[in-house]
């Protein structure tokens, strides 16, 4: 489980102007920073994903800040209004500043 894997799901085809659901799930431990190593008693430092940003053809349409109470392997779903065909680009950023990117193709009919 070392490698962080992101999954994104969007409808196959969407009508213009339609509001559609976007589902995302990323595998992550979401270490809260509250836990201690049982053997050494040392605090385990916080390591969570603190930001998810979604861009639709380069324009930011959704952003959220995450905090330590978010569960491991966080699932996030939200709604976007279809405008034009193109791509949804997702970026998850963790406490170390590393980011995971994933894209989904949007096909708008009519």
């Amino acid at each position, binding site marked *: 489980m070392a490698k962080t894997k992101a999954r994104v*799901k969007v409808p196959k085809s969407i009508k213009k102007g339609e509001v559609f659901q976007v589902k995302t799930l990323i*595998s992550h431990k979401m270490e809260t920073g509250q836990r201690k190593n049982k053997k050494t008693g040392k605090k385990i430092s916080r390591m969570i994903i603190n930001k998810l940003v979604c861009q639709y053809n380069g324009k930011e349409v959704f952003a959220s800040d995450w905090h330590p109470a978010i569960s491991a*392997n966080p*699932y996030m779903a939200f709604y976007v209004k279809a405008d034009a065909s193109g791509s949804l680009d997702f970026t998850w950023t963790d406490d170390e500043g590393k980011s995971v990117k994933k894209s989904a193709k949007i096909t708008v009919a009519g």
Partner: protein
Amino acid sequence: MGKFHLGSLLAAGAILAVGFSTQANAEGKHGMYANGEIRSGYTYLTPQSKAIQNDDFQNPGMIWVDDGATLYEAVDGKAGKSCKACHGKAEVAMKGVATTYPKYDEDTKKIKNIEAQVNRCRTKHMQAKPWKYESGQLLAMTVFIRHQSRGMPMNVSVDGPAVPFFQKGEKFYKQRRGALDMACSNCHIDNAGKNARANLLSQGQTNGFPTYRLKWQKVGSTHRRFRGCNKQVRATPYKYASDEYMNLELYVAWRGRGLPVETPAVRN
């Protein structure tokens, strides 16, 4: 006039009673998640937790299925083989396998579960190092293999050479232990469906294991669950893959006969 009112009131009462009884019947039927009186842990879940399991995308256990699929095809060990090299496509080769495990093993003359069989394959045929019990890899592989049997009814064999082990498992299940002096059966047979403080006790079925447990924030094996239960009654838990837990796993799998394999299930 007075009589008329009373009559309509009674009629209303009757309609209400009918309404309740049909609702009770509907609740008594858990569809595929029950076999007569035997109920999957799924039927004890809140609607919110059910929703997570129902949606394969939302179900975090599917991450382990994906990992297992990768490991199934990964070459490892001195023999230069992957699982797929011998078994072929998992969708075909591993279908229905989970319903028969744990089972009696001719080689060791003991009960083995899927985890034990995976590690046997790794050491014997792949000449690779066995995976640690409860490690990410072993969990992923077990989840992946059991996932291939999803929806198929549990059907372990408890006759022939398995009989003495089954009896040991049953004895373990009904043996009081720990500072609280409680047996598995005290919760999961005598009081299933009732609350132990805030926790709704289920029948303790293993058809969804390894299950994504929201408390653990990851998937865990039956043996981890057994250890947790043993600790809760303040007994010293047995080791992972111990003979005691293998026998117990067989007995518990038999208790859930006919329930569909749900791996990876979501439990609270």
